[in-house]
């Protein structure tokens, strides 16, 4: 409550490999169908994947304040629902049964045409042709070690689990004040207007407790997502973050010490004037990547390139083996249980 909280006994961590993401949103749909299909949750995307550089979700996602500067909380804003993207209505009835030929047209609650939504500027990216570039950025709550959300709440509406560091909202205590949503610099807290409570990613903790990886991890066809406890020295997060130093926090300047880390995007080289690849020139500007992933990004990219060249030469590379994870169970640390093989209690709703 309002003060820095002590570290949990164990911390769960994830690494998302930006070089492997297909932008398919299977993760987003897996989460949506599992957790956010209830009343008042229609427009929530606890997991969302956005094209970067781009506006993100909500629009201009990293410009709403929150987090910490010099250890002090930074005032933040909670953008309106349409800045995240409302749950649009579609004129399906008219399209299917109308006599005229009309296009399927999304509408906001007030009938107007949407001007923003999740992954709104899909695949636009940045750069100038032929050196255009983009990458997909997956975002969930990062279960930060300095959770600005939790520390902003004046009534202990959020808490951190000692056994894995997952930050949860206690809906019995939450009064819908939304200081947490203002304070989260990643804008990963949603608001349920029907129930007047804040809601966010819960790291699929009921699945974790049954040994099953989170839905976004298990459903990812790109094998983008690695999960384990950070204290497991053999686990992928520890290896990638602390040993190989190729997985970096997103916007470390926000000061919340997130526990989701990203393998930065390499992208192909830039072209030279003759229209040939120039292997000495990166296509994604270094300043942009440093802003996104901090000063460690240059060394991380060099390490990945070096290890990749090793495998090109036929040598072995532990780093490449981890990033590729030929056996997909290796991505999931201790959470390899197949949910289909669990004996499940009957669903009550």
């Amino acid at each position: 409550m309002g003060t820095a909280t002590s570290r949990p006994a164990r911390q769960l961590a994830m690494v998302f490999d930006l070089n492997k993401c297909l932008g398919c949103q299977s993760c987003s749909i897996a989460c949506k169908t599992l957790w956010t299909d209830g009343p008042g949750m229609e427009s929530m995307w606890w997991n969302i994947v956005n094209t970067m550089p781009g506006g993100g979700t909500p629009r201009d996602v990293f410009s709403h304040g929150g987090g910490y500067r010099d250890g002090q909380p930074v005032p933040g804003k909670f953008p309106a629902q349409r800045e995240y993207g409302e749950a649009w209505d579609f004129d399906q009835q008219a399209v299917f049964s109308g006599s005229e030929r009309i296009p399927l047209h999304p509408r906001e609650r007030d009938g107007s045409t949407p001007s923003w939504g999740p992954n709104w500027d899909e695949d636009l990216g940045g750069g100038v042709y032929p050196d255009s570039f983009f990458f997909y950025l997956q975002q969930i709550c990062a279960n930060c070690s300095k959770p600005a959300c939790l520390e902003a709440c004046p009534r202990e509406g959020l808490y951190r689990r000692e056994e894995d560091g997952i930050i949860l909202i206690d809906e019995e205590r939450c009064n819908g004040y939304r200081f947490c949503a203002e304070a989260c610099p990643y804008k990963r807290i949603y608001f349920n207007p029907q129930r007047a409570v804040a809601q966010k990613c819960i790291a699929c903790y009921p699945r974790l407790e049954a040994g099953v990886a989170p839905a976004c991890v298990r459903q990812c066809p790109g094998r983008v997502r690695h999960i384990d406890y950070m204290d497991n020295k053999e686990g992928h997060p520890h290896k990638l973050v602390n040993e190989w130093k190729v997985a970096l926090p997103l916007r470390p300047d926000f000061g919340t010490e997130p526990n989701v880390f990203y393998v930065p995007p390499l992208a192909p080289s830039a072209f030279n004037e003759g229209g040939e690849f120039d292997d000495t020139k990166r296509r994604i500007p270094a300043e942009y990547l440093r802003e996104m992933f901090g000063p460690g990004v240059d060394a991380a990219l060099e390490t990945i390139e070096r290890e990749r060249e090793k495998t090109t030469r036929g040598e072995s590379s532990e780093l490449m083996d981890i990033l590729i994870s030929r056996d997909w169970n290796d991505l999931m640390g201790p959470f390899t249980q197949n949910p289909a093989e669990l004996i499940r209690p009957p669903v009550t709703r």
Partner: protein
Amino acid sequence: MTAVTASRIVGARIAPTKDGPLGPLSAGWGAAVEVEVPLEPTPLEVQPSAYVRTAWADRKHGATPSVRAAAAVAGGVLHVRLRWKALNPRPAITDNNVFADACAVLFPLDGKGAELATMGDAAHPVQAWHWRAGTAIPFVIQATGLGTVTRQAPPHGVSVEATWNADEWSVVFSRPLEEQGVPIRGGATVPIGIAVWQGALEERAGLKSHTPGWLTLEVPA
């Protein structure tokens, strides 16, 4: 009745009418003395969140200068009415960044005494009846200090009715005298505090206008 600035709310005894309980605009209120109660912004430095203290350091809160309060007992039920001007009413939570207007009355749980500025302490809890625009059921909450508020599950006997009329909210809290909870009985004198939140200014939680000290509510015998 003319409103006067006062620290006492003297309840009137009103014969129950066949129209049911006293609503926000019931004519029966004409028999009660309505007093104008000055409010003040809650102090920012005691807010139990560094984020709130920082984010609101340069923002105004506590923008409701006063509230008009009256009390009456009809048919064994206590009614407390609060009326205040809200120039930009927020009658419901309609979006992420929309906050509803709200008000509350506060009592020491034992009906005798507790620290108002701290919302009580472990030995002396307080109880509040809290109305938020857009909801039909009041929250009855208890606290033993700032940031410790817990909600009491119904049935708690407290009901609320609110009307937006002529640029002002009229909110009536009602509770049978013999109900569990704060001992508000016929003939009792009970400390009472009042708070108002203006949704248009994003007031919520401890960011509100309040009576910095207790008033007294005199319940007719």
